[in-house]
């Protein structure tokens, strides 16, 4: 079964089986998720994608559901200005990058902020905790998220 959809801004046509999940097909057919593994039960957060702007775990989304839709992965989000700006804040805060979770955490945070633009620092803190990881970057991510939220609020206040 060949399906066409938009992947990180590019039109793609990928070959997959009806029984396969989006994660499996992306991993096999593209460079996306090439070196990642997921829990395959939708809880670890490693394979989250934006499917028409809604964050979903790709390991439990059937491949056929992406026909003619738009998929954005953490790798795609990495190319955006928002990512670069937030990453600059994190670097200032002293982020030690985690190969497993940093990009996923940022992606997860921004997906939530897209839906709930007025989320506060405490919400962001709980959100970062939703992606479990052994690394020690959580305090830096929390501080960075708080600064980001405050700066967004400041921009909104200035506009008002």
């Amino acid at each position: 079964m060949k399906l066409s959809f938009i992947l990180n801004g590019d039109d793609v046509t990928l070959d997959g089986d009806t029984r396969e999940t989006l994660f499996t097909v992306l991993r096999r057919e593209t460079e996306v998720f090439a070196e990642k593994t997921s829990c395959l039960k939708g809880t670890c957060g490693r394979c989250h994608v934006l499917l028409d702007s809604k964050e979903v775990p790709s390991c439990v989304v059937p491949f056929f559901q992406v026909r003619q839709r738009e998929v954005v992965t953490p790798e795609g989000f990495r190319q955006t200005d928002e990512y670069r700006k937030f990453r600059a804040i994190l670097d200032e805060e002293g982020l030690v990058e985690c190969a497993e979770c940093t990009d996923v955490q940022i992606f997860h945070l921004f997906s939530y902020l897209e839906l709930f633009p007025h989320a506060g620092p405490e919400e962001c803190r709980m959100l970062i905790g939703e992606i479990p990881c052994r690394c020690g970057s959580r305090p830096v991510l929390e501080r960075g998220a708080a600064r980001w939220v405050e700066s967004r609020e400041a921009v909104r206040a200035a506009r008002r």
Partner: protein
Amino acid sequence: MAARKKQPVQDPHFSPDPDLFRPPASKVWAGVIVRSRTPHARIVGVVHPPLPAGWALVLPADIPGNPTFQVFRGRFPVLGDDEAQYIGEPLALVAGPVEDEVRQWADKVRFVTRNLSLDEFAEASPHLRRKTITGGDKAAALDGVHGTMEVEGVYSSGPQDHGHLDPVEVLARVTPQVVAVRIKTQWPAHVVNSVARVLDRDPNEVKVLATVSSGTANSQVWYPSLLAVHAALLSRAANRAVSLKLTKEEEFLYSPKRPEARTLLRTILAPDGRILSLQADLVVQAGAYGVLEDELLDRAVVGILAPYKLGHFVVHAHVETSHTPPRGPVGGMGEGLGLFALESHVHDLCRALGQDPAQWRSEQTLTKDSRTFSNLPLKADSPLKSLVPQLAKSSDYSRKHAAYELLQERIDRFQDEALPLRGIGLAAGFQGNGFLAGGTSPVNIEGRLDPDGRLSLYIPIVTANNRSVQLWKESAAAILQIPVDDVRICPVFTGDHPTGGPSISSRAFEIVPKLLLQTCEGIAQKRFRQPLPITVRKVYRRNKGPAWDNDEFTGQPFLSFSWGAAVAEVELVPLLAEIRIRKISLLVDAGPRIDDASARNALTEGVQMAVGWAITESIHWEKLAISHESFLRYRLPGPRELPPLDIQFYEGPKETPPRGLGSLGANVVAPALLSAIRQAVGPDLKSIPVSRKMLDEALRYHEAFLYPER
């Protein structure tokens, strides 16, 4: 003058062939491990459906080289041959084009087994290795000396998963000329040697491209090498690239866990609190084959003996093997097991003495001119002498501890059971940097200054730490006075380049900066005197000192020690039977910091490891296998359990080099947490993880004590 524009240059020394190391997905077959379903039996045959045309099946008889896998002094079969030792042991390997189909086929493979006869069972049953370490007068340690008080306790700690999000994945391609392996590993050199040995190839023909891994020694020291061997065997049989990916569940069930340990400690105390004699019985569970048993056991013993002044001591240390998956290093190499028992025991003995634990620790820690357990004279006071009082002061430990103790004594005056119970715990300890057992690969660094002015550095440390890499670049650029952008840290690729390992934080922090300095200074000396390119290679050599004697327990055990102390404050609401950590304070002495953020990150990681080990991460065994429920319910600490951290660094003399601190947080925070919980709910809790059930029982006991009429 126009700025010099540099073209990207193909590095002649670093050229992993993309066809070998990153082949297109369509050319890669999927490999699957066929595992034992029985914990212990003799294998007499294998029954499987017809193998689809072209697929590859590897059985023990198909191994071309040495069929054993070696790590330090431990050895075990690459594929269980005539006997299965644990559920999940690899017995065969299969590869085919589509992973799901290969897994379905592998599920249908059955091994014909028979139970062992009594004689065979006696011969092959799990063994118990014993080691006795004594100091002072053994008879006095065993029979007791005249003292005021005897304190005894049994302390146990459970297994812990490494908790990485990404299970290990290996890609291997075997050709007549080369064996190419792409793998996430901390120890590329071990992968090279293991694959060469099993495939009967020259190690120079084995090229390993190491992808980034986490920095701590979390289960990835030897386990990826075994999977690399499996993938290489499959690739050889299938004559194409094979990728071996474990599922999350497969890895959880069969990858090495932190070993369980159970320690009985008995101390006899003088009126002033000195330990006149210490008797310890330590049992460490090493799983099947006892991989790394020497290292784990010796480190655990050092954990008991190193921190404080001991009169006479005798330690009976046992390492037990069993028909469960092999254990490995998780959250440290083993000293945390001994430290957990010792520090929990210090909680008990201070309670018996009625003494402030901070005061006891600072009085009983080793001082200048005293001798260590391994009979070496100390040139200076133990760092704990300064660390403990400083931390106690900054965290207001002594006042809070006394207040909570008083609260416990007068608690019958309080009638509101919804009031939270509070406790505070202190623990001190160390991290041993370097390996006791030897057998690791030497660290060496190669630097090459090219004619275009670029510097390439080959550093055999696999790290995802962007800040460390940037610091390496900056320090090299500063020495050679070249732009930072002209310094390249090459990916870890074995072959013609230096290899070393395992990549652990003590090596990254302690050895690499020294070697980097020497390498760059070497290049600087030759620059303008020799034609470019100039290549300099430096190998780390351990300082001369009394060598560690594994049997006698004498000499210098580690390359160095990093010391630390932690205070944990907890709160328990009886109605909820839930532990809330209010604050964790940590004070460490690991030498000068190369990068503050990296040091804080490593300690935070250790603290999270300790919180999981002590509270949230529990593993249950059912019929010699980890239960499926454990996999589903296993939970790393989340924001609810992770409190505000107060991390401070002891500013000591600057002449000491930076030292590792990857597992220091885990080593000291776990016992501090248990002490705090015990102060809040009672002294009977002596094992971790503290499950809700254990807590509920302790609270019921507490309630019965408070309200006997109910």
